[in-house]
């Protein structure tokens, strides 16, 4: 191929690439831009820069919008969910990867069912169950169901990663007299670190973004998480778009920060696990 045709072949694809890059970025850009405008600035046009940045939008969102409360709640829920689910995922994954037990296939099917049934389907019975356990309107109402919902994916992900470990390693350890606990926590888990951190990141994002569970299982504004807070915020501030967008930025920012910090691990873990 001559250099000209090579360049010709490359240019359209570059354009496509940058077009999609633009499409991806523009909504975020507009969001951030609008969050610094005043309502009067809005009327002037979407892309017009405001004369000066209105940081008070963020203050309004944080204070009037109770975003400080919602943010804290999101953290208070996500951290236990991710921690507990990861540990249980490791334990249960270990069992599925290496152990035999009765009804193993059935147990696997039961887990898969949980992954496929949407939470809307069982939220009402769950509500009554929480009520009877006197857990409604508590952090446990948010943590326990989400741990339960994370278990299938965590188990399958950990199990398939564990199976990648060379059997000789495990055999050698057992021959050396290591207990199963030691094999699990001393050998397997360290090898699992990349996959486990990917799992944790996944669970972090899914739990941070969860919508229905906090909506139904918790009534108290003091316990709401960020996405729900955002919904109510919209109800109050439909017309004050700059403050609304500031609120949206507050909700999105932590995820973006975590993502950018760990994106390599995250994506690699995702693709490795997804292929299984």
């Amino acid at each position, binding site marked *: 191929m001559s250099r000209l045709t090579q360049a010709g072949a490359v240019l359209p694809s570059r354009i496509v690439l940058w077009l999609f890059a633009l499409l991806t970025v523009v909504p975020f850009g507009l969001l951030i831009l609008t969050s610094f405008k005043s309502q009067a600035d809005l009327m002037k046009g979407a892309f017009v820069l405001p004369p000066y940045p209105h940081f008070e939008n963020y203050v309004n969102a944080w204070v009037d919008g109770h975003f400080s409360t919602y943010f804290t709640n999101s*953290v208070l829920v996500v951290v236990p969910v991710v921690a507990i689910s990861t540990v249980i995922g490791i334990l249960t994954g270990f069992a599925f990867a290496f152990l035999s037990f009765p009804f193993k296939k059935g147990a696997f099917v039961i887990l898969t069912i949980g992954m496929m049934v949407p939470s809307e389907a069982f939220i009402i019975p769950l509500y009554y169950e929480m009520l009877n356990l006197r857990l409604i309107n508590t952090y446990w109402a948010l943590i326990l169901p989400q741990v339960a919902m994370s278990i299938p994916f965590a188990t399958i992900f950990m199990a398939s990663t564990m199976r990648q470990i060379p059997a000789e390693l495990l055999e050698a350890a057992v021959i050396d007299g290591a207990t199963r606990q030691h094999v699990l926590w001393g050998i397997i888990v360290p090898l699992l670190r990349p996959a486990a951190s990917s799992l944790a990141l996944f669970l972090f994002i899914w739990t941070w973004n969860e919508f229905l569970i906090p909506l139904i299982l918790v009534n108290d504004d003091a316990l709401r998480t960020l996405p729900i807070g955002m919904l109510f915020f919209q109800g109050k501030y439909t017309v004050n778009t700059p403050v609304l967008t500031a609120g949206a930025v507050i909700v999105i920012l932590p995820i973006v920060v975590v993502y950018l910090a760990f994106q390599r691990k995250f994506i690699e873990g995702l693709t490795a696990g997804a292929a299984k």
Partner: protein
Amino acid sequence: MHHTILQRLRLKAVAGFAAGGLAAALSLGTPAIAQTLVTWDDYTDVGQNAVIEQLNKNFVAAHPGVTLNRTARTFDDLSLTLKLTVSAGDGPEVTKVNQGAGDQGTMAQQGLLLPIDDYIAQYGWDKRQSEGILARTRWSDKGQFGEGPAYGISGLGEIVGLYYNQKVLADAGIAAAPASFEELVQDVETLKGKGVTPFVIGTAKQHFALHLIAGIEQAHIDASNRQTLDDLVYGRGGSFKTDAGLAAATIVQKWATEGGFIDGYQGISGDDAVQLFVAGGGAFLVSGTWQFGAMQNNPDIHFMPVPPPAGVTKPLSVGGVDLSWSITSNAKDKATQDLGAQYIDYMVSPEAATIWAEAGFFPSTPLSDPSVVKSTVLSEGLAMWKTLGENNALGHYPDWASPTLLKTYDDNTPLLLAGSITPQAFVDAVDADYQAYLATKK
């Protein structure tokens, strides 16, 4: 093996948060003592929220030892969660409840709300609000709406009427607001000719189309003929297939399809429409008195009843009162119930009415001092309220007639406005829903 910093931090955080979460969990879910009152209300709008916070503060100051545990929920969300929580023995002791078969009727019949006739007598609430208004929270043991014990009382009144922008009209050559419905129709054509938006409306969210259609429909009904409407809404029977209903659907469809509405109305919400109207975006807007807080920001905006056609001297106006304050079955002992009643009494007191009026909102209890009203639209609204009371011309929200009617309206109004169904089909759909509901009551 070494932990990454993240893992170490996470472990520490987990321990800390788990302890915190446990403590939080243990401290929540306390049983209600007479000193704490759990309330839910729907005052999520910024202006309304400020008022209720003030009222709550006043109440707590006047009742030392009492704490109020308040949650604000939007109208849709309240409807969603209230029945579920109260029937499960959880949630508020005093709450706002939407009147009508869907929420208040169902809850009353399930014993989830407390009859308050004793308190009405004790506090003299019937002196502050007419029986015609109190009847809207009455449900008999047999499930008959409009009679039997009362289950709630409201603090704010509501009327649906016609907002008009005097300046926009004047600029288009219309000197005065329309005095009759025929004039309104004429004005719409005039405005269209001048390139001015006649109606500012948004149907993506809220229920502006319903209120417009119902407002026009009931303006065609004279107060002396109101029995039919009352029977409909109170579930005593009748049909929605009326001349007034058909006329309203027809004219609204005409306006929607022939440029009488603002461009792009299908994609904007009712709240957006209000903002556009306040900014001078059009001549007319039909909605309720709950918009006063926003409307008072533009002194050119006035409020009037939807003008009646010729031959109707005392037209009905859609309206009533806002969601009613009720005491739920969660208030188990007399002490809590009494405290709830005291709270409600304060909410419907003249003092509270004054605070609402000062903020530009529409109290249902008469004001002791009308001079506190600073906003034009509020004084116009209060004058209308007085007239409607004298003429017994306060209409109804038609969706109160059946628990599923609101959804039926929401599903069919976009089709009507887009011209996809005929006005007759629209009226038929509404009536079909109502007849189905009547059939289940037998």
